[in-house]
C-alpha cells in the first residue's frame, strides 16, 4: 500500500470517468437525486424534531402554594410566612429533573393577568385589596418525559396546595412528538436503504461496462487490491460529487425557505440553516463516499473471480 499506487488509482479513476463521461454524469445525477431526496426528508425530520422540542419546552408545571382560603387539609387555613415560601422554593429546586423555576407572588400574578387582559383590565379593578390569586412556583422540566414525576414530587412538598401541568395536554403532546420522531427516523432509514441500493446498482453498471478490463488486469497478474483501488476511488468520487450537488441544492433552497418563513410566519419554529446545514453536508458527503466505495467493492466481487 504505497502512495504511488494510490496516485495511479486516482489517475485511472479520473481517466475512466472522463472517458465514459456520459455514464459518469448519469451516475452522479442518480446519486445526487437520491441524496437530494434523502437530505430534504432529513431536513423535514430535523424540523419536526425541532418543532416538537420547542413545543415541549413550553410545558410548564404550576405549583400553587397554600393560602388562608385554601380548603386543602395540609394547608391548615394559614397564610405562609416568607421564610416558609423560601424553603418551599428550595425544596422544589432540589426535585430531580427541574431545569428552571420562578416564584410568582400573588401580586405579580395579578399584574401579569392585567397585562394579559390589556384594554379590559378594568374588570380586575379593585382586586388589589383582596387579591384572590395565590402565590405559585412555575417549573420547567429538563425533559418533557419527567413532567409527571416532577409534578407528583412537588405536590408532596409541605405547603404546596395543588399542582397543575395540563396532564391531558402533555400526554397527547408526548404521543404526538414520539410518533413524529419514530416516523422521521423510519423514513430516513428507509431512504438510506433505497439510496444504498440505487448507488450500488449504478456503480454495478459502471463496473459491468469495464469487466473486460478487470479480466485483463487479472490475467497480467494484478492483485485484487490493485484492481479494486481505481474502482473504489471512482465510487468515492461519484458519491462525493453527488452529495455535494445534492447539498448545494438543499442548502440553497433551505436558506430561501427559512428567510421566507422568518418574514411571513415568524412564530413558527425553524431549525436554523447555520446549525443544521454544515453537519448535514458533512454527513451526506461522508455517506456518499462510503456508499460509493462500498458499492464498487460489492459490485466488483463478482468480476474478480476470474
Amino acid at each position: 500500500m504505497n502512495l504511488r499506487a494510490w496516485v495511479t488509482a486516482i489517475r485511472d479513476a479520473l481517466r475512466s470517468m472522463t472517458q465514459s463521461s456520459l455514464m459518469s454524469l448519469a451516475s452522479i445525477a442518480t446519486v445526487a437525486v437520491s441524496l437530494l431526496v434523502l437530505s430534504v426528508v432529513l431536513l423535514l425530520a430535523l424540523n419536526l424534531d425541532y418543532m416538537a422540542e420547542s413545543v415541549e419546552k413550553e410545558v410548564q408545571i404550576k405549583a400553587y402554594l397554600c393560602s388562608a382560603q385554601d380548603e386543602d387539609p395540609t394547608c391548615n387555613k394559614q397564610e405562609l410566612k416568607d421564610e416558609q415560601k423560601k424553603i418551599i422554593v428550595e425544596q422544589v429546586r432540589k426535585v430531580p429533573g427541574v431545569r428552571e423555576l420562578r416564584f410568582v407572588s400573588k401580586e405579580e400574578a395579578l399584574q401579569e393577568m392585567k397585562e394579559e387582559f390589556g384594554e379590559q383590565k378594568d374588570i380586575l379593578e379593585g382586586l388589589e385589596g383582596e387579591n384572590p390569586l395565590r402565590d405559585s412556583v412555575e417549573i420547567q422540566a429538563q425533559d418533557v418525559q419527567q413532567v409527571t414525576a416532577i409534578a407528583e414530587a412537588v405536590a408532596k412538598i409541605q405547603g404546596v396546595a395543588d399542582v397543575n401541568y395540563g396532564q391531558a395536554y402533555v400526554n397527547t403532546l408526548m404521543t404526538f412528538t414520539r410518533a413524529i420522531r419514530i416516523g422521521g427516523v423510519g423514513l430516513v432509514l428507509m431512504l438510506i436503504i433505497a439510496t444504498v441500493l440505487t448507488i450500488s446498482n449504478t456503480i454495478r453498471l459502471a463496473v459491468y461496462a469495464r469487466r473486460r478490463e478487470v479480466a485483463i488486469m487479472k490475467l497480467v497478474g494484478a492483485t485484487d487490491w490493485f484492481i479494486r483501488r481505481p474502482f473504489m476511488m471512482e465510487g468515492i468520487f461519484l458519491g462525493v460529487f453527488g452529495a455535494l450537488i445534492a447539498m448545494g441544492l438543499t442548502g440553497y433552497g433551505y436558506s430561501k425557505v427559512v428567510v421566507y418563513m422568518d418574514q411571513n410566519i415568524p412564530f413558527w419554529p425553524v431549525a436554523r440553516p447555520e446549525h443544521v446545514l454544515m453537519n448535514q453536508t458533512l454527513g451526506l458527503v461522508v455517506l456518499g463516499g462510503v456508499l460509493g466505495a462500498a458499492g464498487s467493492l460489492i459490485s466488483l466481487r463478482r468480476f474478480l473471480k476470474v
Partner: protein
Amino acid sequence: MIQFVNVTKVYPNAHAPALNGVNLSIGRGEFVFVVGPSGAGKSTLMKLLYREELPSSGKVLLDGKDIARVREGDVPYLRRQLGVIFQDFKLLPERTVFENVAFALECTDVARREIMRRVPASLELVGLRHKTHSKASELSGGEQQRVAVARAIVRNPVLVIADEPTGNLDPENSWAIMKLLTDINKMGATVVVATHAKNIVNEMKKRVIAIEKGKVARDEERGTYGYES
C-alpha cells in the same frame, strides 16, 4: 519446467471430461506446439497453465510447484512470471500502445523509470516503436497481436503461453508472430503455443503435442501438424 501428472479436467455440466488422464513434461527453454481438433482440450490445457482453471484430479506442476496449492492471494504473483497471449489480443482498446504494454508493469508495482526503459525496448522488439502513441483500437489485427506479445514479454517471463495467437491473422502476420515467439524462445523463455496453423507447424519442425478427445494422441520432437487443414 511444466509437468502434467495424470491430469483430468471435468467442467460442470459437461458430458465428457475436457482432459482425461494427461501426462506430459515440458523442459525449460523448449518450444512446443499443442495441436488438435477444435474442442479436443487444447484451450483447457493452456488455461491450466496460467491457472485460470484448476484440474479436477491429478497435478499440474510449474517448476515443481503444484499450481492447485498456490493460495488465492498468490495467484497474481504466479501470473507475473508468465506471459499470456490470446487469439482476441485482449488489449484495452481506448488506451495507447504504450499504455497497454506499461499496464502489465503498473499492475505489478514496477517503478516509473523502469517502465520508461522497458516498454520502448519491448515495443522495439515487436517492431512497433513508431506506433507507441497510437490507440490500440486504431491498429490492424497483426499490429494488435504484436502489442499483446510486447505486453507478454515486457516482464521477461520464464514461460510464454499463446492460445491460438494467429487465429485471427492472415498468413503474413501469423508468420511474423511465430517469428517473434521463436525469438523470445531463443532468448531463454519456454514457449507453449496452441494453434491450428498447419503450415507454420509443419515448417518450423518443433516439438508437437497432439490432443484428441482429452488425451495426448501424439508427442513428437520435430513433429508435424498431422491433420487436414
